[in-house]
């Protein structure tokens, strides 16, 4: 049996007091630690649907008339400047090409009995004021014969290497298409003016045509029409 001395009893009392103080301090610590920063949240989900847009706008009368009524008209031909104006608005990379919807002009009326009524689409020459910046391929940077449907290689609206492009070219590599943009903001790349030229000559053999006229080698006097297609496509 061991009896505690006064000193030992005092020590134990001190220890008990310290324990109580530590307990209170710990509680105080918990109490102050429970003050988290108050907050609340509101939220909103946003969906953005970016739809691909390709707009080709012809800003003038789409009908072009050539009337050959004099010898000079036949000899020198007739040029229609800035006749077709095209605006392109696109949110995707794009190509613009042109072709005739038929291989030959359609004769509506014949004014004589001599000459061939089969005039190839290629007698019409076309030039674009905006040079195609995609190098290589067929273009309209100067007056060239517009290819008929078969020669253009276009099948079901899809171009090929033979197709003539006003902008871009066949293929999807860099510099083979034009970048997205609007006509208003990008007039040098997204606005086009088209010249047309017909030069029959005498006799009307259309010497500039890349496809020769059939026998007897000159055109029959008459009234003809040809439909020209401008197609804007995504560069796929």
């Amino acid at each position, binding site marked *: 049996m061991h009896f505690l001395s006064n000193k030992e009893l005092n020590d134990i009392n001190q220890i008990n*007091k310290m324990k*109580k103080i530590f*307990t*209170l301090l710990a*509680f*105080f610590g918990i*109490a102050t630690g*429970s*003050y988290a*920063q*108050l*907050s*609340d*949240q*509101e*939220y*909103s*989900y*946003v*969906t*953005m*649907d*970016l*739809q*691909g*847009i390709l*707009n080709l706008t012809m800003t003038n009368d789409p009908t072009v008339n050539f009337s050959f009524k004099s010898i000079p008209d036949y000899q020198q031909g007739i040029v229609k400047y800035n006749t077709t104006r095209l605006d392109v*608005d*696109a*949110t*995707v*990379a794009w190509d613009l090409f042109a072709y005739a919807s038929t291989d030959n002009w359609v004769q509506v009326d014949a004014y004589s009995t001599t000459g061939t009524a089969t005039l190839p689409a290629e007698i019409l020459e076309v030039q674009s004021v905006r040079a195609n910046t995609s190098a290589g391929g067929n273009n309209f940077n100067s007056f060239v014969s517009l290819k008929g449907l078969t020669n253009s290689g276009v099948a079901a609206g899809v171009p090929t290497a033979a197709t003539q492009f006003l902008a871009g070219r066949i293929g*999807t590599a860099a510099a083979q*298409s034009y*970048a*997205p*943009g*609007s006509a*208003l*903001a990008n007039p040098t790349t997204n606005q086009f003016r088209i010249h047309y030229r017909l030069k029959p000559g005498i006799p009307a053999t259309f010497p500039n045509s890349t496809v020769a006229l059939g026998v007897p080698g000159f055109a029959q006097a008459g009234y003809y029409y040809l439909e020209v297609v401008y197609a804007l496509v*995504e*560069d*796929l």
Partner: protein
Amino acid sequence: MKKTALILTLSLVLLNLAASGQSVSFALKTSPNLNFVFDSIDKYNKGIVIPSFVTLKVDAVGTEWDLYMGTTTTASGLFDVNTSYGTSGNSSIPVSILQARVYNASGTSQTGTSFFNLTDIATPVYMIGSAANDASVNCASSGTNVAGSYTTQPQCYSFKVDLKATPGLTYKAGSYSLRIDFVLIQDL
């Protein structure tokens, strides 16, 4: 000694309860879903504005507060891609093409009444206050941040939010999404 300790403990508990009489909260949450549909070149060029798509109603009891907003996406600062419609263009669309305008009668101190670009929630835009402890601003001064409620002072504690999207023409066609978070937090 036991009695003294008990009294001290009870005092602390009461003190704690008294201090917890503070709160900040949004009332009448609507959490709306928004859909921007760009289906014409005019919309691309001019952007689309959805006015008052949400109204934030603040209730702050016994404490000052801050209000900020930001976007939450998988890749910080870029829209999430739901699906792509094509191959050309860039699908990394920064959230900053979205702009917000937050306003009420007394105005916000940080953004005024003009549109501002959104940022990721990690670097949010403060409409009221700042990340630091701010000085008190009483209603109806611009940037009110003291305790109050939209029910009695809507001119200071209610905010309308307009949202504007202007993506431009260079991004890949597709469907994109993100979440906009509005955070009301005690100003400490």
